[in-house]
């Protein structure tokens, strides 16, 4: 299994973020939510690794018990 990557891993983060936000331009709230859901499923399929996906679900909860946090 590959560990979930939680350190910077995207080249040109500002470009990516701008593209992500621009993808929602002109969408209603419902359409944006649906877009996000499709996007998550597409990215999950790309990752594939079940353990990594479980770790990602846990990380997104930001729960206090979570131990994947890195201080820096």
């Amino acid at each position, binding site marked *: 299994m590959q560990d979930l990557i*939680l350190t*910077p891993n995207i080249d040109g983060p500002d470009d990516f973020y*701008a593209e992500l936000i621009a993808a929602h331009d002109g969408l209603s709230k419902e359409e*944006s939510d649906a877009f996000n859901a499709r996007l998550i499923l597409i990215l999950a399929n790309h990752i594939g690794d079940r353990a990594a996906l479980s770790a990602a679900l846990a990380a997104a909860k*930001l729960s206090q018990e979570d131990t994947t946090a890195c201080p820096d």
Partner: protein
Amino acid sequence: MLQDRYTLAFREYPYRRSVDQDLPSPVRHPVVIVGGGPVGMTAALDLGLKGVPVLVLDDHEGIGMGSRAICIAKRTLEISDRLGCGTALVERGVVWNLGKVFHRDRKVFEFNLLPEEGHRYPAFINLQQPYFEKVLVDRIRAAQADGAPIEIRGRNRVDGVQMEDGGVILEVTTPDGPYAVAADWVVACDGAGSPMRTALGLEFDGRVFEDSFLIADVRMKADFPTERRFWFDPPFKSGSSALLHKQPDDVWRLDFQIGWHVDREKELRDENVRARIEEMLGPEIPYEVVWKSIYTFQCRRMTAFRNGRVLFAGDSAHQVSPFGARGANSGVQDADNLAWKLEMVIRGLAPDTLLDSYASEREFGADENILNSTRATDFITPKSDTSKLFRDAVLDLSERYAFARPLVNSGRLSVPCTYDGSPLNGPDALPGGPDRSRPGSPCPDAPLDGGFLLGRLGGTFRLLTIDAEAPPEVSADGIDVPRLALSAALDPSGALADRYLGKARSAVYLLRPDQHVAARWESYDEDAVLTAIRGATGRH
């Protein structure tokens, strides 16, 4: 009628009748600069030090009050150093490198803007704009005493412009009435509202951001450290974002995002400003408000920075949001880019098409600044629910996960642009050479013999050799290019090699007078260098 648009902090150049006003026909000047702000004065100083006679027309008699631009970036300090006043700025200002970002009541991360050693100047100093301008004017006075042909005329307001064959006529209003000034070249540094731009009917389009910000500069004894603090959704309810930043003389910049639909007059009332300040500082800290202002902004630029013999520089040519310190700093880079090109054209050492490269390089720089400042603004003031959702998700993740931190954008703080693709660039023929010093890049500084590299480059073309042979001087069509011969061994820290050699064992760099890289090779080849000098001066 000449009426002041603002109160002066320093009355530096009171109106004096010029002999030009008593002559029947307009006196002709090689360069007239319209506007005596930081950009106009930098351009005047640079040209004057090169021996080019320059006349500055300013509609006021000195430097305006108000802190306004406070962050002076490293590149501006390096340019000022070349012009002889970098040290004066650092001595007067407050040095900082550290930024901290807060979300609600938690610090989510911090960043160091200059994480490496071996630079003469820090990433930033903070200094109130009037003091920056004062340092420039003082430097101009010293240069004038040494013979630099710079003249400043206060209370000379340009009210009309006519383009003529081979020149420009400016109609100038003074307390003694109007007169005309003729110029071979005009540099319009007359600010965001540029009357020159309007008079010529040139477009200035872009995007309006629907938000307002309240600035309060306060004097107080506080033990906050010297760093930039930025809050998204601060726990104190002074604004939907807030900034705290130190200036000299115990003055602190507070900047609150207060929304688009605000009653400016009401918000600027003393009691309302104080309410926001005390919400942030708490009731027990004594303070005094030294300056307050509400600003809104647009991100826009002129389509073309060159209009025949009129060249636009600074805010007259481009405007950005303040997030990133890219306004005045980029204007100083305009002046830096323009001065040497104008000098060469005036001396007949380059064709006037060299000035087209001023426009294309600085338009490229403006686009980069506008892109960065627009993105920061979109992050700070999300314009849709989805944008805010992602913004808050990034902030929530960033405290715990390092991956989200590069996405947090409270302003991508000003770094000079690399003129990739500039028509002036020559070959990048240094296999293994570092990316950061590729053609188009501003020269990175490096320690050298107890001093620093940039201070050794000066303001002319240079051939920098590192562990490579070359003649002591190369000349191409009247342009003399002295060599600066270095060895990587001169810098035991390894920074010089790291920043200029990379994996290469030797290097030859052709550097422009504005200390940008024009071309680079592994070893000296006369024909290649001569061709590159011609290319870098617009002769292809």
